[in-house]
């Protein structure tokens, strides 16, 4: 059970020490909202299939850390020598470990506190915690209530930073269990581009839990690619919320890959708040052991002429559980919306479970919306074809599963990242 007295004290303390950091109001609202709703239970519709209450048992205090540059070196992703690297340690933005190659005239990275007071204070005031309009649950509110060392990134108007942005969430579980609540706000201004990759790593063998929220605001004619790669230890759990608001006619492309972890919950929210937005969401989850992965997508079509496409594919083996919940909303003004969604699953074990729930809520008539989902197995005939040619059964299965995954992987545009993920998947599938 979550200790409410402890939470309350901890919150009061935080409000006192950082009373005038410009985000005390957001914290207050979030805490009030948490006090009202509490943590979700299986009776909460959006959390019906995923139980996370026990993950919050850990201490919220994460004083100091011992993550060194050498630690970071070991877990950097390919292509890092050409990338801006943004590092969170135990949920706090760590400027010392972070490394930026792009110059200030392309993009600027600030701590949320600084951003809330300086030049960007209007943007922060307007967009920070906008996600709470959609995320009404206590988990999201708890992140908001404890925003401390968050980060703000601004991509300037008309700029295309040469270097992609990598975000590492490092949780230091070498001494004791750890809990982290990272928070970020990224503003992509008009006519600019950003390629963003986010990943999670737990050091050591203790349990870890990361409850992160990243808000992304995309202005007119901007182009965004976003990749989320989750391959953490099997005792590392995450609730990862990505809330993207397209406030101008723009293009967003996201790929979420979940391979390993304890309980992994992804909330991918897209608010299409301008005429003619285009959005592509892809997802892949390959689950083994006892991993529980829950992908919630939400696309809110608020303006006319928007296009969105979703493809989520998954494989559940061993004792794993895969959950997919895809919600498409079309508001009354969003005429001429085209929105498609597909969720495909392969179940490889009788002890694994797949729960899927596509959902359409449509309030406009001139729309084309569809969703489809399937749960099935590997094609017997394809397996036979391969085995007839002398390929052993295990290898044939890996081949077919790789081909199945390739549908999603081809949408990872940077070659370095794609090759990296392909390798991870091959290793993941080959372990029997």
């Amino acid at each position, binding site marked *: 059970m979550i200790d409410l007295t402890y939470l309350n004290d901890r919150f009061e303390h935080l409000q006192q020490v950082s009373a005038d950091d410009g985000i005390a109001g957001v914290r207050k609202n979030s805490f009030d909202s948490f006090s009202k709703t509490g943590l979700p239970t299986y009776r909460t*519709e959006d959390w019906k299939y995923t139980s996370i209450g026990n993950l919050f048992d850990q201490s919220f205090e994460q004083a100091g850390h011992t993550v060194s540059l050498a630690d970071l070196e070991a877990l950097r992703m390919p292509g890092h020598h050409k990338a801006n690297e943004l590092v969170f340690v135990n949920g706090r933005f760590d400027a010392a470990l972070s490394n930026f190659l792009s110059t200030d005239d392309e993009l600027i990275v600030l701590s949320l506190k600084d951003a809330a007071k300086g030049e960007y204070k209007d943007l922060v005031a307007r967009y920070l915690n906008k996600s709470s309009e959609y995320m009404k649950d206590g988990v999201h509110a708890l992140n908001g209530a404890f925003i401390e060392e968050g980060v703000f990134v601004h991509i300037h108007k008309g700029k295309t930073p040469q270097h992609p942005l990598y975000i590492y969430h490092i949780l230091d579980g070498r001494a004791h269990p750890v809990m982290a609540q990272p928070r970020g706000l990224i503003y992509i201004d008009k006519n600019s581009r950003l390629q963003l990759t986010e990943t999670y790593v737990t050091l050591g063998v203790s349990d870890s839990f990361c409850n992160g929220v990243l808000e992304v605001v995309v202005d007119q004619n901007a182009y965004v690619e976003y990749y989320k790669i989750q391959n953490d230890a099997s005792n590392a759990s995450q609730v990862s919320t990505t809330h993207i608001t397209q406030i101008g006619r723009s293009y967003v492309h996201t790929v979420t890959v979940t391979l390993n972890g304890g309980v992994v919950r992804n909330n991918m929210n897209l608010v299409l708040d301008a005429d003619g937005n285009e959005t592509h969401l892809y997802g892949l989850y390959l689950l083994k052991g006892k991993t529980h992965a829950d992908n919630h997508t939400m696309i809110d079509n608020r303006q006319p002429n928007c296009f969105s496409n979703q493809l989520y594919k998954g494989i559940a083996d061993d004792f794993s559980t895969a959950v997919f919940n895809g919600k498409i909303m079309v508001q*009354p003004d969003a*005429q001429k919306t085209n929105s498609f969604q597909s969720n495909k*699953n392969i*179940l*490889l*074990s*009788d002890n*694994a*479970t*797949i*729960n*899927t*729930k*596509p*959902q*359409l*809520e*449509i*309030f*406009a*008539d*001139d*729309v*084309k*919306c*569809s*969703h*489809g*989902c*399937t*749960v*099935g*197995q590997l094609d017997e005939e394809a397996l036979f074809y391969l085995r007839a040619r002398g390929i052993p059964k295990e290898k044939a299965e890996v081949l077919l599963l790789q081909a199945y995954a390739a549908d999603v992987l081809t949408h990872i545009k940077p070659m370095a990242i794609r090759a990296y993920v392909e390798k991870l998947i091959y290793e993941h599938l080959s372990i029997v």
Partner: protein
Amino acid sequence: MKENQDPLEQAVSNDYKYGFVTDIDTDTIAKGLNEDVIRLISHKKNEPEWMLEWRLKAYAYWLTMVEPEWANIKYPTIDYQDIIYYAAPKPKKQLNSLDEVDPELLSTFEKLGISLSEQKRLSGVAVDVVMDSVSIATSFKEQLAEIGVIFCSISEAIQLHPELVKKHLGSIVPMTDNYFAALNSAVFTDGSFCYIPKGVRCPMELSTYFRINTENAGQFERTLIVAEDESYVSYLEGCTAPMRDENQLHAAVVELIAMEKAEIKYSTVQNWYPGDKEGKGGIYNFVTKRGICKGDHSKISWTQVETGSAITWKYPSVILKGDYSIGEFYSVAFTNNHQQADTGTKMTHLGKNTRSRIVAKGISAGHSQNSYRGLVRASKQAINARNYSQCDSLLLGDKCGAHTFPYIEVKNKTAIVEHEATTSKIGEDQLFYCRQRGIDPEAAVALIVNGFAKEVMNQLPMEFAIEAQKLLTISMEGSVG
């Protein structure tokens, strides 16, 4: 027709054609619900002690429950003390044949287009008519009795076949199942009972017609169908109600039991009063329908055409327990004006090689909200379970909504489950094609909508298919697009 009048506006302007009140004496009790009312109902129905106990138990349980709120519908709080729980046409004497039925009542049914006498003569349908919760007359009972089929009102069954009722009542939908099922268990006043003995193929379609006549009355009927090994029955149910300003409550429970190699086909055409154009009045239709394929190779098929009710809230479900059993669900839900529908099905696969098929078509117009909500569950033992679901929504107008909430839960690696859903409006090209060929816009829309719903309509027995198609066309009239 006027060229520039919005076709949908016209569709909306159609009046409810079944909204007459039959002026006959009814025996009603005072409004309100308490133990005494339940005792009174039980007493009036001359029920045995065990039945009363069962009702009181359900009532006690109901008191501990709260009204569910999860459905995608909105309505003002229902005052359960403001409802008449028993209303029966005053019996002049014991009825033995149709000729003795109140002529006023018979003409009601003639207006509804199900003239008993005519049906009796021409189509050979056995009809059990329920008006305000009490069975009026059951035709063809004797012919059915000859082959061992029992088809009577549930109150009669409680008197005459207590062992059957006792064994099966509440076995599929227990009184504790949900709020409205508990309420129904406490206060149900009538309904149909149907028992098909082993090896009998019921030679005619069995049919019930429900009609709410009295103001402020709730209708709580209970239907129980038991099909023994290797039997077959096709059961039809139709519903209408007169126009009232108040909302009326209808909370029915239907239970189906199919034993080995038995097949039950259950068809509903529901045309309760949907309320007026402003959404005033209309029936709240909160129904629990569930069937179980108990034996191997059994089959249960639900077909429903829902055009009425201010609120429809029902999920005819099938529990596929026997190996090789089959569950089917075909549905057309049409909502107009301020109607709200939250309907769908649940297919629970437990046995091996079980199959289910879901075809749901939703059509929304006016300010209505139409939701499909379904669950397909394949348990760990359900080897080779197979499901295919399809839900399509058609939107006629920009003020209505169409929603789908399909839940799929699979725990078995041999199961194959597929679901697809689409939402769109009538294509301009389709309309153009029709108009180009001289079909006026109104007829074209009706044509396209009927085509959209055809897959489901085809599942209805002949007598109902015609009525259902007519109903749909009436609801659609003027929908030029």
